[in-house]
């Protein structure tokens, strides 16, 4: 790579990181505000204003950054920052607002799955480094939850990729490939449709665990562990985790949109240029909102917190079986259509 190419790449990385970090934080906090407001209304409360998460972050920056006696200070301080940065880095590999990923050539879907583990691990390491029994129990629960939901998630990703591979498509783990051949367009008969619908439900149920939301929030469990792995965190360190949560919400919703709803409105209504771009961005934001509404807000309002053994059971038995049934239905889709035609 020549000097010009390298400097162009560096400028893209700097501007891309700045732009997408701003996007992820602003919309992550905004969606958090909407989620809190909507869930409050569903429970018959007025709830905080939409801008409350922004105020929370601003307030945390003015609070003392307490480091407990038994903590390992450098890990305790560094790890919230690592979690936030890793989450923001995922945004650069994701298609957002109808645009292709900024660094599509930098990594594929498998890389994103691995990068998604870093923020969860940051929570675990932060909890262990706190030196608090509550935080250690919370960290252990977070590890158990991570191990539990990875299985159905892996089956889901493999099914989407395998289905594209069967159609003779190459580079099946690329988001541009998935966007060019959406899963619903690859369905031959009702079995494939039911299979992918099951897999979509599985992914919507994996999302609250990825985000440590009710009913899978036993690692934090305010009423039981007083915040669990975050119990000793305060001030700017807690603000980093708060921002990570917001950005990760956008990341998870964007992954669901990219895998299952990669459609743009401008192509349907024949809009071009700037109007088309604006419509596509607004449509993407609406899709992200709907995903958050169904996978976070509605679930956390409707269901009580599960115990950690119930969480493991939910992911390893019903949801893994559901994802395997989805996989089998997708596999049989083409065969059944050929038999009956």
């Amino acid at each position, binding site marked *: *790579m020549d000097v010009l190419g390298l400097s162009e*790449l*560096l400028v893209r*990385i*700097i501007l891309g*990181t*700045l732009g997408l*970090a701003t996007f992820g934080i602003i919309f992550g906090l905004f969606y958090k505000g909407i989620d809190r407001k909507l869930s409050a209304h569903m429970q018959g409360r007025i709830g905080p204003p939409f801008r409350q998460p922004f105020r929370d972050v601003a307030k*945390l*920056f*003015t*609070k*003392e*950054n*307490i*480091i*407990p*006696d*038994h903590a390992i200070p450098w890990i305790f301080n560094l790890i919230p*920052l690592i979690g*936030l*940065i*890793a989450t*923001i*880095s995922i945004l*650069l590999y994701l298609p957002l607002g109808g645009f292709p990923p900024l*660094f599509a*050539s*930098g*990594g*594929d*879907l*498998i*890389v994103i799955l691995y990068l998604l583990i870093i923020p969860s691990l940051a929570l675990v390491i932060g909890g262990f480094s*706190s*030196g*608090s*029994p*509550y935080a250690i129990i919370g960290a*252990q*629960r977070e590890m*158990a939850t991570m191990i*539990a939901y990875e299985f159905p998630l892996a089956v889901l990703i493999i099914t989407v*990729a395998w289905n594209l591979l069967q159609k003779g498509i190459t580079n*099946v*783990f690329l988001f541009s490939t998935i966007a060019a051949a959406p899963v619903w367009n690859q369905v031959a008969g009702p079995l494939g449709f039911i299979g992918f619908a099951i897999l979509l439900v599985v992914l919507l149920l994996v999302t609250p665990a990825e985000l440590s939301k009710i009913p899978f929030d036993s690692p934090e469990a305010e009423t039981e562990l*007083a915040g669990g792995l975050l119990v*000793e965190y305060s*001030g*700017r360190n807690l*603000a*980093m985790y708060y921002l990570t949560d917001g950005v990760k919400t956008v990341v998870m919703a964007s992954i669901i949109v990219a895998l299952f709803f990669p459609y743009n409105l401008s192509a349907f209504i024949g809009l071009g240029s700037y109007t088309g771009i604006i419509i596509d961005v607004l449509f993407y934001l609406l899709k992200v909102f709907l995903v958050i509404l169904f996978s976070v807000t509605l679930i956390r309002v409707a269901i009580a917190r599960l*115990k*950690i*053994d119930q*969480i*493991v*059971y939910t992911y*390893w*038995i019903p949801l893994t079986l559901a994802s395997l049934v989805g996989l089998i239905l997708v596999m049989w889709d083409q065969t059944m259509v050929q038999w009956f035609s």
Partner: protein
Amino acid sequence: MFSLESGSGFWNPILWVLIFFIAFLLFYGIRGFGKSTYKKDTDQTKAFLSGNQEPSAEVMHVKASNLYWGFTTSMKTVYTELRKMHTGNASDYVLWFVIILACLFLIMGVM
């Protein structure tokens, strides 16, 4: 450039490290705006235990085996059955191996 390819997937670690480094500089700077002070050697720095007196570190220790509680409890039926199958007799293990292999060939043959 510098992409690692597995045949079906790829990753450019150098690019990720660059992204990580730039994001680190940015957020380390932003984090610097937050308050960094606190009152050392006060009750503030003791672990929160719902108002209970903090015992010694040895007593407070949570065993790592606690991690597996969720798994052993939720999969109790499976573990009980597995324990029954774990007879310690080598011929039993060979038998299980043959049965599983036969099932695998059956599935692969059908597919």
